[in-house]
């Protein structure tokens, strides 16, 4: 069983009367436990494809299956599937609500599910990502970029997902903070037994993190890269646009 199976995925955006096809006939499979890369130059459709899998954009055609459960186009993801697919966004500054304290950012999703000892769970979540309990009383703007991204990761892990989608998770961070976050992600992947799908335009991050990848161009898949190909680096030039 694959963790994620995408078949003939197409996403078209309507603007006025015209349609723009961002993703066209994309198919790939992700094995459980691997880190799979969706790479390509900006505008190639990798983020659009990722957001379709995340359920943020329900306007797609084709088929998306996560651990043998199919997503329904046109419908929001609910239930167990919703818990199983989670996402870490690119810029923690714009994905953490500026007016909510960390306690609420991490506590609300748990309270929503009727969990009883929310405070303890929040403390555990913070601990997992290396943040002290004192962080609960802070607002996002009172934390550093790296700390915010840790909170974002903690939030993504609250519902114990099996599939974690990462949209350029470290591009807004300094090099040394990036190193810590990448280490953290890999540690958590092992300890929680997750599968990663990573979107990135940074060849270093891709080469470090991914077991396999597909290279996208203008909405379709250009080539598939296994570990050997990723190590070689011939694909790096194709990440840039003219």
């Amino acid at each position, binding site marked *: 069983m694959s963790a994620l199976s995408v078949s003939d995925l197409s996403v078209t955006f309507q603007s006025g009367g015209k349609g723009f096809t961002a993703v066209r006939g994309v198919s790939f499979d992700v094995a459980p436990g691997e880190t799979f890369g969706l790479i390509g*130059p*900006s505008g190639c459709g990798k983020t659009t494809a990722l957001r379709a899998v995340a359920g943020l954009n329900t306007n797609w055609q084709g088929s998306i299956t996560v651990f043998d459960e199919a997503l329904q186009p046109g419908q929001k993801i609910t239930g167990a599937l919703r818990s199983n697919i989670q996402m870490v966004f690119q810029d923690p500054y714009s994905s953490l609500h500026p007016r909510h304290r960390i306690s609420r950012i991490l506590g609300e999703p748990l309270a929503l599910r009727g969990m009883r000892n929310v405070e303890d769970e929040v403390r555990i979540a913070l601990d997992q990502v290396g943040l002290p309990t004192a962080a609960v009383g802070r607002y996002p703007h009172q934390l*550093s*970029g*790296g*700390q915010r991204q840790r909170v974002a990761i903690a939030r993504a892990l609250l519902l114990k997902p099996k599939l974690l989608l990462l949209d350029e998770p470290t591009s807004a961070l*300094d*090099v*040394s*903070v*990036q*190193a*810590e976050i*990448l*280490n953290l992600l*890999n540690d958590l992947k092992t300890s929680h037994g997750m599968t990663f799908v990573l979107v990135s*335009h*940074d*060849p*270093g*991050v891709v*080469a*470090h*993190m991914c077991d396999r990848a597909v290279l996208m161009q203008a909405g379709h898949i250009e080539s598939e890269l296994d*570990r050997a190909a*990723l*190590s*070689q*680096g011939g694909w*790096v*030039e194709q*990440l*840039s*646009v003219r």
Partner: protein
Amino acid sequence: MTEPLLSVEDLSIAFPSATGSVRVVDGISFSVDREVVALVGESGSGKSMTGRAIMGLLPRRAEVRAKRLSFDGQELTTLSASGWNRLRGSGLGLILQDPKYSLNPAHKVGRQVEEALLLHTKISASERRERALDMLERVGLPDPQRVYSSYPAALSGGMGQRVMIAAMLINRPKLLIADEPTSALDRGLQDQILTLLRSLSEEFGMGLLLISHDLQQVSRYADRVMVMRRGKIEEQMASADLANARSDYTRALWAARPSAATYGTRLPIYGGEA
């Protein structure tokens, strides 16, 4: 030996705050001549502030002190407002991170590229246009005429940055400061822009100060590298010597970059800092 183009001796920059004065740059000294020097540091290291101090672009509440801050023989700490106006755009140039925020969206590109000529020279309008078109071609834009008469909104990120470079170099400044000139661009484009900056600075005999947070990347284009940390210069060396850096911090910064070689391993972390 002639004096270097830029001499900085014991520069300190502090900002007043509710809890007293906060030093963001703490007594640094360095020089830049007609060479490419990289000033590297992470957020909060003080590198951008340093660049702005050299351009006289710090906010008014900043307290700048230096034993010496001189460019081309002129002492910058005592320079008047009109002195700065004469210097910027002629002797000194600055390129910032995102052309979206440096190019005026309401004016055509050509006009903005020529602006420095308008302010600092007395050449005719047709000659200005000539020089602008020439510059746009030199920075690698395929259709200079079209770009000249477009608005910035029509340009991609990479093109916009090339336009910025053209605008800044048109008056052949002696020193160009580039503050994170490629962070807003795609990886592949970044290399192109840095290559362009380097080759133009060689061609024009300029000094180039590259400010960046990416040590590995910028060291490929610089002759010398200065690593800043928490307001101080940690280490300075020729970029060829980076592999043998003495400071732990520099070594960690160098090694922290992920790559195919680090696959399956933990990236090294400096000390225990966040």
